[in-house]
């Protein structure tokens, strides 16, 4: 399991907000992530993004209609 959700980045700006210390930013929802949600995104505490994160999608999933991998959710 990846230690960090591949859709999570740490940014100082985005979503109309800025922070002195980079905070968890979800590239799926395009928004800063609540600290507890970041725990899930980072797969801490044996949590698995694929089963524990409501925003997770499989980036390797093949699509046949040219939509993003989460287009069928």
């Amino acid at each position, binding site marked *: 399991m990846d230690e960090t959700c591949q859709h999570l980045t*740490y940014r100082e700006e985005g979503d109309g907000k800025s922070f002195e*210390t980079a905070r968890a930013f979800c590239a799926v929802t395009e928004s800063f992530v609540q600290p507890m949600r970041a*725990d899930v995104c980072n797969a801490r*505490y044996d*949590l698995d993004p694929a089963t524990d994160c409501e925003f997770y999608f499989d980036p390797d999933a093949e699509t046949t209609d040219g939509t993003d991998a989460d287009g069928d959710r």
Partner: protein
Amino acid sequence: MTYDDYLDGKPAVITAALTGGVHGKEAHPDLPETPEEIAAAAAACEEAGASVLHLHARRDNGERAFSTERFQEVADAVREATDDAVLQHSTGGTAAPDALRHEPLRTDPAPEMASLDMGPLNRYERLTSENTRGLVASLHAEMRERGIKPELEVFNDGHLNESLAILDDLDDPPYLNFLFGGGTTSPPHPRNLINRVEALPEGVEFNVIGFGTHQLPMTTQSLLLGGHVRVGLEDNRYYERGELATNEQLVARAARIAEEVGRPVATPEETRELLGLRGR
């Protein structure tokens, strides 16, 4: 706990939940996260009437921290900034592994109080905080060993069952915290709180949390029924619809209501006497 307690003007303990572990500055730009910010909020809340300070620790990026070291930093800063308030460390509300859950209890000195979740609760779509009986027992054992008063977190009626089952194992007076809101917390309705209070054996002290918009009505009802109250940004970000609150605003409002309904606000000394705490 009876209605007579209210009529007798029993002091009301106000707990301030300053920051929590769920949301951060992405949700409220002034929500305290660093030890310094938490300490400043603690001092303001003590001044406004809070005698108990419910503490979480955060990493520099705002995410939750359980380590003894980070809790020590927070506790040291809060003790330095406050006069006499009771410190209560959080051990709950998370899917963190059992070993980490004990770390907030191991500061020097130990906190006078700590939260103890009484069973499972759900977060978001898929996350559950399990809180097995084994974990509850081990946390309680360490609290007893270190002279820490447990606040039993009763998120729903099942947790009340679990709490009543261990009453004999608790030091007097048992202290239960009733939470009302959505998800796996109890539905926020006045009759649900009345049913809870009627189910309590004599001698049990209770506290009430209402999440979000339920904070004001549920805590007000607790004051009428002889209970204690917890307010703060952990549980509710708004003073009224559309207006972000500060921690001290929420404490000051609870203090005003308590006084208005005939419940003097408990000082830290009175809180220690009411709840049987060991002292700072």
